[in-house]
């Protein structure tokens, strides 16, 4: 007998198939309708509008990773907040527990956010968020010509 209901794993499979099809169809559609006029500029690797320099194996500054880590931390927190909010705001559960439910949920979430913020404060306090600015050293020229003379020339022209 063939099961008529789609199981939870079946839904995931459908989702995967759907997403692959979506990408393929979009590419196919754009290939069908777009004009085909390549030039050198268009054929370069797309890298957020920047010109690509060097190989992809080059080393990155460690600070990128720290910033990325902190970013992911808070992004995951946001994702976590959405399902929490629906559970937290469940009027029936709050009514059944005399508000205990709400208090418990909010204390839990504040603890969670507090720990995350503590991590951010740690990174901040330790100076991991400070970006090294390259120190600009003005060139010094040993010359007998006084500065005013240069200024006078600059003013004139």
């Amino acid at each position, binding site marked *: 007998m063939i099961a008529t209901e789609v199981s939870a794993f079946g839904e995931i499979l459908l989702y995967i198939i759907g997403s692959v099809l979506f990408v393929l169809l979009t590419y196919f559609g754009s290939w069908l309708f777009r004009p085909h006029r390549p030039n050198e500029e268009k054929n370069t690797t797309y890298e957020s509008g920047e010109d690509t320099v060097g190989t992809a194996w080059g080393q990155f500054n460690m600070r990128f990773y720290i910033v990325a880590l902190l970013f992911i931390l808070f992004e995951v927190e946001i994702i976590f907040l959405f399902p929490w909010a629906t*559970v937290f705001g469940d009027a029936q559960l709050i009514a059944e*527990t005399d508000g*205990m439910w709400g208090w418990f949920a909010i204390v839990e979430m504040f603890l969670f956010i507090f720990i995350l913020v503590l991590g951010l*404060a*740690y990174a901040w*306090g330790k100076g991991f968020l400070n970006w090294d600015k390259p120190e600009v050293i003005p060139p010094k020229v040993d010359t007998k010509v006084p500065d005013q003379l240069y200024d006078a020339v600059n003013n004139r022209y």
Partner: protein
Amino acid sequence: MDISILKNIIQSLPMVLPEAMVAALILLLTIACIIPWKKPAMVGKSLSWIFGIGYILLKINQWNGQWDNGFLGMISLDNYRIAGQLLLGGLYLFSLHLSAVEVQLKNEERMEYWLLKAAILLGGSALVMSDNLLMIYLAVELLSFSAYGLTAFSFNEKGNKAALKYLLFGAIASALTVYGMSILYGLTGTLSLTDGSFWMNLSTAPVSILAFAAFLAVIGLLFKLTAVPLHPWVEDVYQNAPTPIAALFATLPKIAAFFCFMGIMQLLPPLSAEAKQAIIVALGFIALVSMTAGNLLALGQKEVKKMLAYSSVSHAGFLIACIIVPAKSAWDAGLFYAAIYGIMNMAAFGLVQYFETGKKAITYEDFNGMGKKHALWGIGLVIVMISLTGLPPTAGFNAKLMVFLALWEQYETTSTTIYLLLLVFGVLNTVIALFYYIRLPYHFYFQEEGEEDYHFYRRREVVIENRLQWAYRIALFVAILPLIVLFFAPQIIL
């Protein structure tokens, strides 16, 4: 959603009160990291001590309490587990003391040091209580992550290298663990070990897949126990991590993993007899290989800390031997063995640390002829080494004897060959162990130090402050005394 879930969670909060204390310590230390203290080591140490003692007191308060499963079957507590956690707390405090000495000598004043140590205690304590595969995994990861960081705390190239090796090894081990657990979840539909359906579904699962998944799932625990297929990292990590950290690694995570394993084995009964038999034989084989390979590898070492590292592998074999005996006697033997193992390893690392910081003694040869000047330390050394071997009159003897008796009883009642094999190999290994343990006191007392060596090491000698000398003496006395006392009165623990 059900209100009973909320009720269950709120009711189980007191179960984790001591752990909450350690968590609070970690958060406080995180805040303290940012504040520029004049004496950070002082702040970190005092906070750790206060909260560490608080943890132990709260744990004692839980003793004999009516604890059921908590947090929807995530954790459970009984007196056996509480005893394990008390042991972890004691080891943590002892390691704090050793660190205090080390930190002042090296002028190493980073708050993160204390933070990561507290995280190890939290991870260990959680692992002992775990009743759920997810919880076990999280606790093992907490233990591992802090351990990777702490390994690099000697801040030299070798330390960093060891930490990186440890990290790579641990990452692969934990990946395999998750993979195994996910297969188990696929087979049973639950992660809870206390759930009856977990074992029910396992009994009907195909044997080949089940064996594969179960082996992968316990890799995380075997990694923490440093049992044989997962031991290659110990040598570098124990040698290059700061010594109090190595002492902590050698004891706390292993004992935590041991108690977790004991908890799992207690839940086995619903499994079919053949499956149980297969698990016991597989683990017994790991135990056998661990104790033998650990001993043979320890024989060839030149550095004392490496020898202790491999000796801890062989001790892990004995701990696993206790795990696979499903009898009350093995439970007592396991608890006793774990406690004695913890105490004597702490003492051994404490002694090594004293000679390492004061005399720069790292290899066996560095210990040559020290007996003339440090006779009292030598007595301590002899006691600890004899106890590690498992000879009377030290508690190490009682510990090994109890394990052997448990194995023998189990063999007599079930006549399964693996118990007899373990017993025979255990006794043989004790003889092998004698060679490398006693080598240290031998070099200490009976070897003349070479003329050249003498000048070399005189030049390197660091004078340890008087106050610190006393700190060492008290610590070692506290660690060595139980080894003798428990030989005559083992009932104190049991």
